């Protein structure tokens, strides 16, 4: 009972504002510490890869960035859908606040992937299913942001953006399963929930630490941005 009341309490932008500030501050610090630990493990503990040599160390940012790009899109679409269904202002503001950070991680996944692909595959870019669907994800983020920026009335912008975000969500499972559904140059998943990871444990540790750092960074950036949006709109 009391938790239900508190959730509604925080659904109001004014009451959420100071809480978001406190969570963001903690997450900035956590992200910095985890990134430092992840980079230490990634560069000084993890061994040289037998096949790829040193260049595989790009995966410590590539894989977490790619995970965040997909995950943030789903979170954004969920907030947008809640905002559309229940007409809650804060939910729509959260969706708008997540979009730029999601777009950033999508760009970084593509960029680091290209720089890893060149020495490993011999090419920066191919139009295979994984790379193409990830590029579409970047356009979905940018389209969402452009659409919202083009509509003057914020409530109408929220609704229009929400429809785009929800329809675009179908792309996320396509990205995730593309390496199984199609014959892609991009390799299959080395880490999954259903089986043991196919890499040295220190490599996995470095990658997971960086993934956690990106998580906290995304929370901090989104909450800082939602505070700006609350100030601008309310």
């Amino acid at each position, binding site marked *: 009972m009391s938790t239900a009341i508190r959730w509604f309490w925080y659904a109001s932008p004014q009451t959420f504002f100071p809480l978001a500030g406190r969570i963001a501050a903690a997450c900035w610090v956590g992200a910095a510490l985890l990134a430092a630990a992840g980079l230490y493990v990634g560069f000084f503990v993890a061994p040289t890869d037998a096949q790829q040599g040193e260049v595989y160390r*790009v995966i410590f940012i590539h894989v977490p960035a790619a995970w965040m790009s997909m995950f943030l899109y789903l979170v954004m679409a969920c907030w947008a859908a809640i905002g559309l269904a229940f007409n809650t202002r804060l939910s729509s503001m959260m969706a708008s606040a997540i979009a730029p950070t999601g777009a950033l991680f999508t760009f970084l996944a593509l960029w680091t992937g290209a720089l890893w692909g060149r*020495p490993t595959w011999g090419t920066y870019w191919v139009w295979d299913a994984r790379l193409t669907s990830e590029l579409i994800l970047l356009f979905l983020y940018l389209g969402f942001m452009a659409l919202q920026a083009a509509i003057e009335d914020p409530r109408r912008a929220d609704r229009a953006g929400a429809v785009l975000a929800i329809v675009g969500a179908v792309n996320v499972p396509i990205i995730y399963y593309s390496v199984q559904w199609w014959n892609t140059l991009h390799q299959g998943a080395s880490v999954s929930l259903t089986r043991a990871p196919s890499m040295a444990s220190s490599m996995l540790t470095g990658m997971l630490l960086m993934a956690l750092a990106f998580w906290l960074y995304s929370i901090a*950036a989104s909450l800082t941005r939602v505070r700006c949006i609350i100030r*601008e709109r309310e």
Partner: protein
Amino acid sequence: MSWGGWGEFWAMGGKGFYVWGAYAVTLAALALEVYFLRRRSRETKA
């Protein structure tokens, strides 16, 4: 990796351009986002 001095570290087995190109752009992108967020926070506060 076994430590062979800073020169070897930055060389990354001859793949330094790719490794550091990826890390430098990631760092720059995140730093830029933080910079713009701070600026937007300051502007909206006033």
